[in-house]
C-alpha cells in the first residue's frame, strides 16, 4: 500500500513538472532554424531588439497574423543586426507581445538576400520563395499612429486573392538601420 502511494506521488510530481515545463515553453517565443512557407506564402519581418520603430505596428501585425494565418500565410520575425541573441529576441518579444516564430539571421544572409536595410521592413514570399512584396508594414510612424497606407495588409490581401500585388515594392519609411558592419554605416538624407 505504501509503495503504491509512493509511486502515485512520483507520477503526480512528474506530471505537474511536465505541465509547467510545457506551459512555460509555450509562452517562450519559438526560434526557427529555417524559414518554412505556409500554403500561400511567408512573411519575413525584419526587426531589431532595440529598435523603437516597430512598436507602432504591434497591433497591425498581430491582426495580420491572426487573419492570414488560417489562409496559409506564415510569419517570421527576423533579427539581422550584429549582436542579436536569443536573449535579446526574447526581450523584444516580451515587449511587443508577438507569438510568431523568430529567426536569428546571425550572418546577415537573409538581410542581404532580400536587401533589407531598415527595421521594420517586410518581405512577402510565395511558397516557391519568389519575392511578391517588399516594403514597410504601414505608414503609422509618419502620422503619429494614423495609418494612411496599410502596405503589407494590402499586399497579403492580393496574394491570398491570387492577384498581382498592387504595390510590390515600397521604399522604406524611416526606421532603424540594420547594422552588419560596425566600421561603415550608410549615411544619406532621405525624406
Amino acid at each position, binding site marked *: 500500500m505504501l509503495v503504491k502511494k509512493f509511486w502515485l506521488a512520483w507520477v503526480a510530481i512528474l506530471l505537474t513538472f511536465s505541465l509547467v515545463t510545457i506551459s512555460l515553453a509555450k509562452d517562450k517565443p519559438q526560434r526557427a532554424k529555417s524559414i518554412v512557407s505556409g500554403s500561400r506564402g511567408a512573411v519575413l519581418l525584419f526587426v531589431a531588439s532595440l529598435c523603437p520603430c516597430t512598436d507602432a505596428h504591434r497591433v497591425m501585425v498581430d491582426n495580420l497574423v491572426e487573419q492570414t494565418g488560417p489562409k496559409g500565410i506564415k510569419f517570421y520575425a527576423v533579427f539581422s543586426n550584429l549582436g542579436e541573441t536569443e536573449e535579446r529576441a526574447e526581450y523584444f518579444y516580451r515587449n511587443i507581445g508577438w507569438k510568431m516564430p523568430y529567426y536569428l539571421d546571425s550572418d546577415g544572409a537573409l538581410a542581404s538576400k532580400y536587401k533589407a536595410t531598415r527595421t521594420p521592413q517586410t518581405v512577402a514570399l510565395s511558397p516557391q520563395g519568389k519575392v511578391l512584396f517588399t516594403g514597410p508594414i504601414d505608414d503609422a510612424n509618419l502620422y503619429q499612429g494614423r495609418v494612411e497606407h496599410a502596405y503589407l495588409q494590402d499586399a497579403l490581401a492580393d496574394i491570398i486573392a491570387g492577384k498581382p500585388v498592387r504595390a510590390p515594392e515600397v521604399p522604406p519609411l*524611416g526606421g532603424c538601420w540594420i547594422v552588419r558592419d560596425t566600421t561603415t554605416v550608410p549615411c544619406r538624407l532621405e525624406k
Partner: protein
Amino acid sequence: MKKTSKQGVAVSNKFESLLKLLGLPVCILFLLLSAGLFINDCGGESKSESLSLKDAVYGSPKAELSMEKPASDELFSGPALSVAPEVNPVPNTKVHEVRIDVTHSEVQVDSIVKFTAWAFGGTLPGPVLHVRQGDKVIFTMTNRSDQTIKLSPPMPHSIDFHAAMVNPADKYQQVIPGGTIKFEWNANYPGVFMYHCGTPAILQHMIYGMVGMTIVEPKEGYPTKVDREYALVQSELYLTKMKDGTYLADMEAARQKRATYVTFNGKPAQYVKNPLKAKPGERVRLYVLNAGPNGTSSFHVVGTLFDRVWMDGSPQNEMRGMQTVLLGSSNGAIVEFVVPEAGTYTFVDHEFADVELGAVGQIVAKPDEIASK
C-alpha cells in the same frame, strides 16, 4: 403712526413708479456691465495677460534638414543651457542659439546599474534650457545615433518643445541618423515646460531618457527675489536585467506602469548622497518638472511650506501656503520657500511608493554654506 404709514405708502408708491419707469433701462445696463465683467474675467484678455502677450509671435520659417556635421564633439552648446540641478541665468540677449544633439550612451544609474540611454546632449535628463518670455530660440539638433552603433542601432529621433507654438509636422519631424534639424521658435508663454523625443514609440524614447526641461522666465521677471534656485526633473526608469549584467529599458513594464526607479534628475536618491545646499533663512526657488512618462508627482519638502507656487511655472497661476504640489505627467511648477533654520530638508514625491523607488532628495542648510552665485 397711521399718518406716517400713509406717507410711507405714498413714498413707496412713487418709488415703485420711478422704478417701473427706470427699471428696464437700468436692468439692461446692469446686465451689460455684468456681462462685460464676466467676459473680461473668463474669456477675454485681462489687463495683465494682454500686457504679457502683446508681443507674442506666431509662426516661424520652415525647419531645415541637412546632413551637416556638428563643428565640435560637444553634445550641447549655448549659454542658455545647463545641466540640472544647475540653472544658468538667462543670457542677456533676445535670440538664443542652442544646440542639443542626440546620442546613445551608457549611463550609470547607481553604483550597480548601468544602462544604454538615448540622451539629449548626452545627459539624463537633457540640459535645462533657460530663456525669457519674448525671446527667440534658434535650435539645432544632430542625431548622432550613427556614431554609437555598438550600443544600439541607428534610429530616427526628434524633439517636441512644450514651450513652443509651432507646426509639429514640420519642427518636430523625425531626423534620420546622422541628420541635423534646425528651426526656430518664440517663447510666448512663461513657464516650466517639458521637452521630449516625439518619435514612435514615444514611450520607448522617453523611458530611454529622452526628456528635459525648458524654463521661460516672465518678461517682467518673477515678483520675488530668491537666494538660490535648482531644477528638478522627476522621471521614471523601467529596466530589465540581461544575462551579461547590463540593463535595458523595459517597454512591457512601462506599459504596465511598474517602474524600477523614480528619479530626480535621472538617478534614484542621488541628492540623499549628495544633497543640494542652502543657508538658513534663504529663500529657495525650485523649478520642478514631472517628466513621467507615466506617473504623477506629489512634490513636497519636509519641514517647510511653499509660500508661492506657480503652476506650470507661470506667476499668473499662483497658489500660496501649499504643502504639496500635484503634477501630472509633463506638468511643471515653480515652488518657493524659506529655509527656516539650519537642518536637513528632505524633498519627496509624497506618493511614498515612489520614494521607495528613489524619488527622494535632501537640501542641507548650514550657516557656513557659500552663497549662491
